């Protein structure tokens, strides 16, 4: 069953059809929210809000873009709204929490030796810190591009920017992170 069919059924009040859409896209929606929000709990709330808003606006979905793109755009806007609130009230706490959270993430590529493990962990921490230090526009583009879930068109729809702009932001974000790592002394990595 295609998304369009499920949308048509959901519009008629079929909650199960909408539930199927939630199942299909919840991972992509979560990662989009997570790209904007450092906190897992905030991302969860944004995902719920996004699906609820999407359900309420199903009548306005005209199928010009795919349902996934439309849903991701809603989700990212919800996440951005939440991020503004978080930044306003909990900036310090969120930063501290996100730093701790990064340290808790197990390495996807365990090093062969304890020494190499320590080097990798330090590099990861520094890379994460530099990514977080980027301006939101660059950081969002980089995180969404590296999430592996979205096409550049979908990222453009989420960020409301043309394709060329998204590509430039991703490239610029990488360049800045590398430059700052260099200043940290990562000239001779490995």
């Amino acid at each position, binding site marked *: 069953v295609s998304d369009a069919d499920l949308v048509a059924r959901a519009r008629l009040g079929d909650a199960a059809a909408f539930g199927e859409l939630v199942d299909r896209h919840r991972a992509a929606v979560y990662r989009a929210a997570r790209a904007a929000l450092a906190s897992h709990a905030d991302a969860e709330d944004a995902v719920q809000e996004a699906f609820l808003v999407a359900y309420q606006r199903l009548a306005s979905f005209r199928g010009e873009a795919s349902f996934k793109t439309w849903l991701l755009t809603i989700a990212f806007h919800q996440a951005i709204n939440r991020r503004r609130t978080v930044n306003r009230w909990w900036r310090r706490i969120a930063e501290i929490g996100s730093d701790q959270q990064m340290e808790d993430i197990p390495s996807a590529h365990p090093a062969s030796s304890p020494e190499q493990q320590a080097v990798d962990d330090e590099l*990861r921490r520094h890379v994460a810190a530099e990514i977080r230090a980027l301006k939101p526009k660059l950081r969002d583009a980089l995180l969404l591009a590296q999430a592996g879930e979205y096409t550049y068109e979908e990222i453009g729809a989420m960020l409301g920017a043309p394709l060329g702009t998204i590509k430039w932001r991703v490239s610029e974000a990488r360049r800045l992170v*590398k430059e700052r790592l260099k200043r940290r002394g990562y000239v001779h990595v490995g």
Partner: protein
Amino acid sequence: MWDERAEHEIDAAIDRVARELTEGASDANIKARVLARVEAAASPEKTRYFGWTAPVAVAVLLLLAFAVWRRADVAPAPTVTTPPQQTARATSEPNADHGAVNPPTPEESARTPRTSRTPRTPRTLRPPSVVATLAPPPLTVDPLGVEPMEAMRSIQLSEMTVPAIDIPPLPSDK
């Protein structure tokens, strides 16, 4: 300078960390929670449907109240009727103060555009205004007890007789 190996490792680290920053999965119960919220949002549909009528109703009531107040305020004050004689005299004998109509100066003519006089439509009856209800009750004056006068006798006048006047002829001119 960055050597190629360092460049590659840094790129790989950025990719890996950026992916990790968005990793994770939403709660497995997300579907149930979303559907519960959808149900909860749909249940007060009637309330939302009729909810908009409340402010409209209040607005209509306010408009009605304003209209009634406005009509009561504009209602004509009790008019003073003038005796017909005075009115007739006023129209036939313009006095010097009000009746003398000077022709408008050119400036006045320019300020006040001339409008054709159209007969006014008669005013419809309106309910008594608030001011009218506050007016004191009308005075009641007892009729004066005046006895009717006796019938007047007609005055009898004797007929007048006028003697003829003899006029002598005028002397002829010579």
